[in-house]
């Protein structure tokens, strides 16, 4: 956890989708295609707006997330990547990731993406059963997903992630096992396996609330998860985060920035940033985001300086909250939190900062200590992974230190 880091991660949000999935609560929209051109200009503009503030930083990772970034026209992708290289100091070995839906990944599009310098794809496969994909309202079928992965290989991508969802409503373990086995046949470098979460505000949530669907049985989901951990370990994948596995050295460097509580800049509608000690987020609605960027750019052009009008709000976490955030994020990682590094950063060890919570959960068996020489670390036990919220709530400052 380097504290003096001048490294920076860039996140670019593409909020457009051809159709919104029932379980998705991300800042994404269908039917806003007409805003795409204006949005591209705004995002380029925001890259310009931030450039002066990041002069001392080296960009190590760039991540295009969404929404559906793979919907973005190749010429726009080219414009983004060019603008980033032009305005920012980008490390030569930087990780350039893009989230993609199988539906858009034609051979031609893939080669075009490769040519822009994108070197990692995260493919939203979710399931390899057609009926489950229909239930999830995904726009592709299993065959198309497999084809997309093969096409990506052929186009020269050697760093692929597949996003999979388990614990689907009514899904028997065997069905999930089948999806994962077939995914393994494609030898991705990275796998994100998420338990389906019924998020408030989603179409799925209302179906559950109305009793049309039953929320997945937590015990069944736990069975799926435990099997997944064993199976992927056997297949040579290392679990490095609650929901993420990778071949050694293929961890997603961009996501590690979040979990290490290191700085990142999120650009685009609704994107989140952690920069100069402040956590903040842009305006969600794409049209209002575009207007705000336009206004900021005009102001900058006339007065030479100005406000970043696209920022909707944020907080400067106080010391207690920063420590809690660092623990909560860091414990998501299987390596856990190094007491030494934590002490260097915050001036106290985790045991000094959270004496009760740590003692309590060493006793409940959700936390464990990895003694030196392996790092003097605190981490979640295998059981603690699935019960991590029980630990996290005890780490929160009391009363909550929110200064919104």
């Amino acid at each position, binding site marked *: 956890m380097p504290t003096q880091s001048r490294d920076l991660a860039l*996140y670019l*949000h593409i909020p457009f989708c051809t159709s919104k999935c029932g379980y998705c609560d*991300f800042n994404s929209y269908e039917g806003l295609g007409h805003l795409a051109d204006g949005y591209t200009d705004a995002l380029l503009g925001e890259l310009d707006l931030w450039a002066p503030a990041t002069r001392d930083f080296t960009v190590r990772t760039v991540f295009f*997330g969404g929404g559906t970034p793979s919907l973005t026209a190749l010429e726009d992708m080219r414009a983004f990547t060019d603008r980033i290289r032009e305005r920012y100091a980008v490390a030569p070995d930087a990780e350039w990731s893009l989230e993609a839906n199988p539906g858009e990944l034609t051979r031609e599009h893939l080669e075009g993406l490769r040519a822009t310098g994108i070197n990692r794809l995260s493919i939203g496969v979710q399931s390899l059963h057609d009926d489950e994909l229909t239930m999830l309202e995904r726009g592709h079928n299993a065959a198309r997903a497999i084809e997309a992965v093969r096409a990506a290989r052929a186009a020269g991508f050697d760093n692929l992630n597949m996003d999979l969802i388990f614990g689907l409503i009514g899904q028997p373990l065997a069905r999930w096992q089948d999806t994962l086995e077939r995914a393994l046949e494609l030898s991705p470098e990275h796998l994100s396996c*998420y*338990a*389906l*979460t019924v998020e408030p505000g989603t179409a799925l949530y209302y179906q559950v609330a109305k009793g049309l669907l039953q929320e997945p049985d*937590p*015990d069944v*989901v*736990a069975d799926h*998860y435990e099997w997944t951990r064993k199976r992927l370990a056997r297949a040579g994948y290392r679990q490095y985060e*609650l*929901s993420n596995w990778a071949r050694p050295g293929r961890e997603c460097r961009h*996501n590690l920035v*979040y*979990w290490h*509580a290191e700085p*990142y800049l*999120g650009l685009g509608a609704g*994107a*989140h*940033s*952690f920069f100069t000690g402040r*956590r903040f*987020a842009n305006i969600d609605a794409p049209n209002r985001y575009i207007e705000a960027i336009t206004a900021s750019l005009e102001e900058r052009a006339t007065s030479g300086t100005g406000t970043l009008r696209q920022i909707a709000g*944020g*907080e400067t976490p106080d010391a207690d*909250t920063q420590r*809690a*955030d660092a623990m*909560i*994020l860091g414990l*998501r990682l299987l390596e856990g939190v190094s007491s030494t590094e934590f002490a260097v950063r915050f001036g106290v060890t985790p045991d000094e900062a959270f004496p009760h919570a740590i003692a309590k959960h060493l006793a*409940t068996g*959700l936390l464990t200590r990895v003694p030196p020489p392996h790092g003097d670390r605190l981490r979640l036990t295998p059981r603690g*992974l*699935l*019960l*991590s*919220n*029980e630990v*996290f*709530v005890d780490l*929160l400052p*009391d009363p*909550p230190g929110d200064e919104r």
Partner: protein
Amino acid sequence: MDPARIRNFSIIAHIDHGKSTLADRMLDVTGTIQARQRQDQVLDSMDLEREKGITIKAQAVRMLHRAADGLEYQLNLIDTPGHVDFSYEVSRALAACEGAILVVDAAQGIQAQTLANVYMAMELDLTLIPVVNKIDLPSAEPERVAQELVDVIGFDPNEIIFASAKSGAGIEEILEAIVARVPHPRGEANAPLRALVFDAKYDAYKGVLVYVRVVDGHIDGREPLRLLQERTRFDPVEVGVFRPGFTVVPRLEAGEVGYVATGLKGVNEARVGDTVTTDRNAATEPLSGYREAKSMVYAGLYPSNPDQYPELRDALERLKLNDASLHWQPESSAALGFGFRCGFLGLLHMEIVQERLEREFGLDLVATAPSVEYEVTRSDGSEMVVDSPAALPEPDKIREVREPWVRVNITLPSRFVGAIMGLIDERRGEYVKLEYLDHAAVEGESRVLAEYLVPLSEILVDFYDQLKSRTSGYASLDYHIEGYRPAKVSRLDILVNGDPVDALSAIVPTEQATERGRKLVSALRELIPRQLFDVPIQAAIGGRILARETVRAMRKNVLAKCYGGDVSRKRKLLEAQKAGKKRMKMLGSVEVPQEAFMAVLKLRD
């Protein structure tokens, strides 16, 4: 005013028979309330009363009425609650009156409680004016109901007034009847002051306000006063009447009803039922004439947050001032910490007290399961009274336990008698007698008044709801304490994670203990959320386990996805979880929601 021109009266009725609407209408007709200030059910001033559509507290109002004889009369109405739980409030109000209007619904006829109120009024020697109300309802049978009043209570047919509080029909006639039939107050204007305190409330500026009916003498607002029994001396801050808002007057004469602001800040210094007199030349004999409230149900009230114990104590004291029927004493529970054992008139009263404490005083409370008061003879022959399961001695230390029985009066159409017999059997009750109310019934079926003896503990939970559902809503209920009888009861203990939880214990009939225990642990298994370890829940009597269930350990509580760097939001989700946990009570290391303590109430289906 000349006492000959004063009439003090009250309205008694079964719940929902239109008492509050009738009061509203009289306020209208006498011009006490201007049309534009109107708000339905003016006298139900508590939010809770308007919401529940019932009267909880007695209220008073002064009206001026020019009668047919051309003279102006002062009519003081003291409104009363209709629900059986609050009959105590009724008796207090009646003690301050010379007459009462008896309101009976033209469709429903005499109900169990109508009779209870009539007997109470008769005991106090009040003049009754029978009114058949709601005569404009499509289902109204005014003639038949009038005949019931003649047959059952013995009114003269000519006394009965037919009215519709809704349309205004008969209201003038009622007002005239009050003037003509209700005796005027007969106090001694020149005797030393004696005024009956029939209610009280606390005002932050004026201190305790006592609501009084002046019997002898007068109150002029200048002379120092004193409460006869409590021996509290005070200088009145102001004297006034209810119009219906507080309105200051220079004097309250013998026979009049009004209030005195005492300036007293200590809520214990004034008690309802006390007699106000002058400090000098004081009266010696206190007034009497209302029935002391008897608690029927006892339950523990605890602050969810133990720090709120002093606030709860203050709140109970304030409430007591306004609700003399509430009794309490401090108790402590290993599970819930410090709280109060409270005595209530019934379950509705308990619910209302809890709601008032939470709303009016901003408290968050945990209530334990209600219990009745048992008499216990110990093995050594000594006697004790037990109103809390925790206080019941071990079985080998008990010679005998006696429980309270009530005499239950139920009015219902005769075809439901069979259904009610079943309910009475299930509740360990005994048949006493059956009486036909309407001898004259020709068409349709007749209504009966059924009388039973039932253990009080059996009617506390769900009895009224069962009665209603088994009679399609036709039955009505009244009960009063009959006496104590030997009972075979045991304390059912509940163990959570191996430890007995005093606040979950219940006293149950020994023969039903196993079944109750089984139902209780299974209800608790649903109510107690999964913890980080298996939590056994057991029911036991004297160490013998009767039933067991297990709350399986939780396996999953995780945020699978970390939303693209939205750490603030993730923290908020966790904060919400944390807040949820904080509302739980810790029993050892087990988190238990407040509802669990009322689980015993949900056992009957």
